[in-house]
């Protein structure tokens, strides 16, 4: 671009490199075979894409709440980056569900009600910056969520569905970074000051009751796992436990001694946090029916 006319760039071609940190909203799956195998139940596949897509979308919505509120500018950048990665995954998965169901990512994101969302509770609860948590709770959730999703996506790279396999292959690289980022903060906060250690212990206690739900299979996950399309989440438990124990051990922390709470997100049963989250996310899209964005 020339440096004399601020408006020249309005007519320039697409230059993705102009984003400082990337966006994750390019067509990452162009060229991937989108045919659906005749042995796979289409409704099950769509529902499964919604499960994994909703986890990413709802959690990205939570992470973006940190924007302009993080403890350091570097962390504003990092949390936005993680949210953008997850939003990118959500878009690919919701688009896949949409093409099976004859709709699109935005109708799925903005026009479904709480009971139609299939994300796990861990994605939707308030872990800060709202009153439900703080930076330590946020890192506790990031550690658990990313350790779990990384293990899941790792296995999903071998899915019989080529789109899921491609989404997983891209996601594995992203989640590896997310998990590392969280683990480093858990170490810093646990080993920093007395206060930060207290916060870290308290943060883990907030997210831990939601751990069991992550490994509880919905019937759809069972069926698709048998068809080689999905991952049975029960199989992830030992790997995720071992990652969490390694990080907690290095930080000199122990697993919180707290009871599990009932899950049900995969079947559309959510916590009280979900309806207000969706009301905010969907308000503009629903207020202007027929709007184009």
């Amino acid at each position, binding site marked *: 671009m020339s440096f004399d006319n601020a408006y020249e760039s309005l007519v320039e071609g697409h230059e993705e490199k102009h984003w400082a*940190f990337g966006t994750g909203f390019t067509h990452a799956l162009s060229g991937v075979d989108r045919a659906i195998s005749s042995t796979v139940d289409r409704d099950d596949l769509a529902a499964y894409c919604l499960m994994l897509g909703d986890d990413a979308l709802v959690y990205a919505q939570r992470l973006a709440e940190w924007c*302009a509120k993080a403890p350091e500018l570097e962390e504003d950048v990092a949390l936005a980056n993680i949210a953008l990665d997850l939003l990118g995954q959500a878009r690919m998965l919701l688009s896949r569900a949409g093409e099976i169901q004859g709709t699109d990512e935005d109708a799925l994101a903005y026009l479904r009600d709480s009971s139609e969302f299939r994300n796990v509770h861990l994605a939707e609860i308030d872990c800060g910056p709202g009153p439900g948590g703080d930076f330590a709770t946020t890192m506790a959730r990031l550690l658990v969520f990313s350790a779990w999703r990384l293990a899941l996506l790792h296995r999903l790279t071998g899915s019989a569905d080529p789109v899921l396999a491609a989404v997983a292959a891209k996601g594995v690289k992203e989640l590896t970074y997310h998990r590392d980022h969280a683990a480093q903060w858990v*170490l810093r906060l646990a080993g*920093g000051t007395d206060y*930060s250690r207290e916060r870290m212990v308290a943060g883990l206690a907030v997210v831990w009751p939601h751990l069991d739900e992550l490994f509880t299979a919905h019937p759809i996950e069972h069926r698709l796992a048998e068809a080689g399309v999905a991952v049975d989440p029960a199989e992830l438990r030992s790997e995720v436990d071992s990652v969490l124990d390694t990080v907690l051990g290095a930080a000199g922390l122990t697993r919180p001694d707290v009871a599990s709470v009932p899950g049900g997100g995969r079947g559309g049963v959510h916590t009280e946090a979900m309806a207000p989250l969706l009301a905010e996310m969907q308000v*503009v899209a629903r207020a*202007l029916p027929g*709007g*184009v964005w």
Partner: protein
Amino acid sequence: MDLEREFERVVAADHRIEPRDWMPDGYRKTLIRQIAQHAHSEIIGMQPEGNWISRAPSLRRKAILLAKVQDEAGHGLYLYAATETLGADREDLTTKLIEGRQKYSSIFNYPTLTFADVGVIGWLVDGAAICNQVPLCRTSYGPYARAMIRVCKEESFHQRQGYELLMTMMRGTDAQKAMVQDAVNRWWWPSLMMFGPPDAESSNTEQSMVWRIKRHTNDELRQRFVDMSVPQAEKLGVTLPDPKIAWNAERGHHDFGDIDWDEFWQVVKGDGPCNAERIENRRKAHEDGAWVREAAAAYAAKKERVA
């Protein structure tokens, strides 16, 4: 004396001053003030747009907006880093910002009331920022000039995204079109004020021009912005809220109406619609994060002792 002559020679020849070169104290202070003000503007500027990330009405727009606000944090980072090459300190500058001892662009003291504001900020506010900043890519201080090249490239991308949002909305429902026009009505005049007071009242311009920290006057840049915006508004199908805008063939520029400088000074002095809220949010984020920064520093110090 030789050092000073050498400095003047380098600046006059349009070469770059680098961090280890000798420079007059006034030059250093002016640069720190100007770059810090720019960094603060990026950071405060995250709020009015960040306000709409949670409610962006499509997933594509949500990703674009989140990436844009993230870029602003990145710009703030490189600009604070540029001030550090002059001996300033980010923590100290942040304290000055939240205590109101250093300023940021007044434009961010206006509220964002609808999602169309996101598009208009991209088009007009980023457009005005680019007009102001593009000449700074040739500014005399090397680290600042280099940071500005990157900032300007990214800003121009943001501007295009904002304009594209408005073009899309103008193809939509009547309610969307009305929303765009309303946002243009609210942001046009504050955008013109972004170039600062008229040349006759601008206290810092003359010395900064000699030092090549600044390369065009406020009024020159404002005129350029009006000339570029008028055809863009026509193409978009919106009316700029100034009946006096008219092409003046004799001047080769558009004439435009009088700016309400009382409003400008009121906002600069801290009594704009959102001044208190913007600073309070920044202060709260900074104070709420203090224990995290302390923990990170304590942890790093412990690691150092072990190593």
